């Protein structure tokens, strides 16, 4: 009895520690983002929302010296690039990844198995290797580095993520539903539209959201193929860090976190509605 109690107690403590380990740093960042101390953010000086206003380009009482961002324009430009890239890559990789998953599920062509294994490769290859490989490829192909190369480069591995999410959804799908649809007079296209796709949608949405979030915060691979003209949000933040950690970074981090959280919640909500 008491051993059981001890075990339970241990389990609770372990769980608490586990969550603390994961969430405490995030909580600290959130707290610091409201700290008015411009020099040492570990020391609490008072509550302020200035860092947020400052990042968003509003005039506050914070002195110029405490900031890195010379102009909010730079930050917003990086954000805009990231969003354009994320939307494009999400669209492309969702369409291609879903099509690929469907093809491999539907048709048993020669080499389908090899193809399936190959789809896991971009996730297994270290980012840095993939980044270098892409860079060498683009340079040799004589392509000008920029938003275009970032989109193509990110798609190479985002397709894999979408493929895997959609494939797992397909694997759980009941093949006899397609038979039933055909039996009732629907041709392949109608069957796809009315039976397969609605069932597949949660998987497709899940894959798309995953692709969007990964695209938004990919640093390593994007860094290699971004060239000199284009800056994405992660690259911009990374560059800021090289000049020391300043409080406004906390505000940016909290905003990104909130955004990711909203996107993920939307995903979960859509998924629960589909059930």
């Amino acid at each position, binding site marked *: 009895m008491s051993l059981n109690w001890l075990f339970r107690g241990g389990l609770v403590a372990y769980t608490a520690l586990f969550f603390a380990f994961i969430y405490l740093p995030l909580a600290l960042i959130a707290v610091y983002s409201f700290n008015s101390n411009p020099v040492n953010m570990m020391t609490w000086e008072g509550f302020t929302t200035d860092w947020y206003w400052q990042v968003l380009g509003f005039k506050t009482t914070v002195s110029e010296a405490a900031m890195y961002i010379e102009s909010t324009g730079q930050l917003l430009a990086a954000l805009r690039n990231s969003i354009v890239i994320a939307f494009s890559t999400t669209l492309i990789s969702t369409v291609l990844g879903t099509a690929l998953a469907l093809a491999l599920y539907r048709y048993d062509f020669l080499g389908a198995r090899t193809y399936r294994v190959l789809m896991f490769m971009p996730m297994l290859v270290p980012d840095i290797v993939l980044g270098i490989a892409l860079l060498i490829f683009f340079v040799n192909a004589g392509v000008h580095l920029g938003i275009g190369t970032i989109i193509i480069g990110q798609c190479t591995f985002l397709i894999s993520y979408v493929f895997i999410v959609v494939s797992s959804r397909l694997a759980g799908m009941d093949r006899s539903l397609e038979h039933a649809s055909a039996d009732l007079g629907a041709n392949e296209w*109608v069957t796809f539209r009315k039976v397969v796709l609605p069932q597949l949608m949660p998987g497709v949405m899940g894959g798309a959201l995953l692709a969007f979030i990964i695209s938004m915060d990919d640093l390593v691979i994007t860094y290699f193929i971004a060239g000199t003209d284009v800056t994405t949000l992660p690259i911009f933040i990374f560059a800021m860090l090289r000049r020391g950690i300043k409080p406004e970074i906390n505000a940016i981090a909290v905003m990104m976190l909130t955004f990711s959280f909203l996107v993920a919640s939307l995903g979960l909500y859509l998924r629960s509605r589909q059930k």
Partner: protein
Amino acid sequence: MQDAIVELAGARKVFASPEGGEVKALDNIYLDVRRNEFLTLLGPSGCGKTTLLQSIGGFVRLDAGTISIDGADMTRVPPHLRPVNTVFQNYALFPHMSVEQNVGYALEVRGIPARERREKVGAALVMVGLGGMEKRRPNQLSGGQQQRVALARAIVARPKLLLLDEPLSALDRGLRHSMQIELKNLQNELGISFVFVTHDKEEALTMSDRIAVLKHGRIQQIAAPREIYDRPANPFVASFIGVSNMFEGSIDSGSLVMDRGETLQLGRTLQDCKGRATAVIRPEQFSLSFEQDTRAGIDVTIDQVIFVGAGFELYARTRGGRELVVSAPASARDDVARAESDRRARLIYVPANIHLMPGEGGSQ
């Protein structure tokens, strides 16, 4: 030809078995389904019933042979163009659609306008006893209700033929029995042919106009239930259908000589047969006697007598240890009482009435 809705000729289908060999799921099948007929495909699991049904539905592509439906060659026609609907073994209801959408699916893909669709869906649901459930999702229904939705969905577009793959096997006993009757009534009401798959002989015997018994992808016999029961074509059919009192042996000048030295007298018409054979004497074909006379008979000891309302069932044993079942009418009360107290009797049979089948080894 005009009275056949489906004609299969020389249908073959071979699957590669996981062990690397071949499975003949359909082995040279010739089958006619008549108009307005309730035809049952009966056989043990794995004998090819589903494959046969799906080749009519168009989901299995035949390796050889042809299939025509309502006079038109359908051998290479895809499922969605065949005038046939199926009730699948697992129902295969669309989980993301309401009952109404499920049932209306066949009409919707044919472009029937919404109002007409709603009427027909309502009528079909009433027909299967599910009126008022239109808005529910399949997962909000019981197994029996899902079954009815599957049925309504398959009949709403009035197919020329309805295929049913073990539709009752997932239901419990009571429900199953009432569904058997309902299905039979529905078939009469709709006036279309049903091809019904089951591995349950009772179900087959009660519901069917004709039964096709399958084994290893071959049709063993196709006939009316009574005919199958009274005159099974071979020992497999006899034992699968649950016929009692089978005698295996070799035919020798008008008798069947069994392995333990017992013999059975055969009717004159059967005396030409040669070789190994199996004879059937049904329980009600015996009559009880206690005299040794010239009539053909078997001396037995009586193990047990059971009163079954309309009569009696006697469990008897021959000298060679062969177990036999005898059924006696209530009018034979006195003879039964004597057999029970003596614990012995002589079972009289009429040799000419014995059903004789070539071959042996009924228990597969």
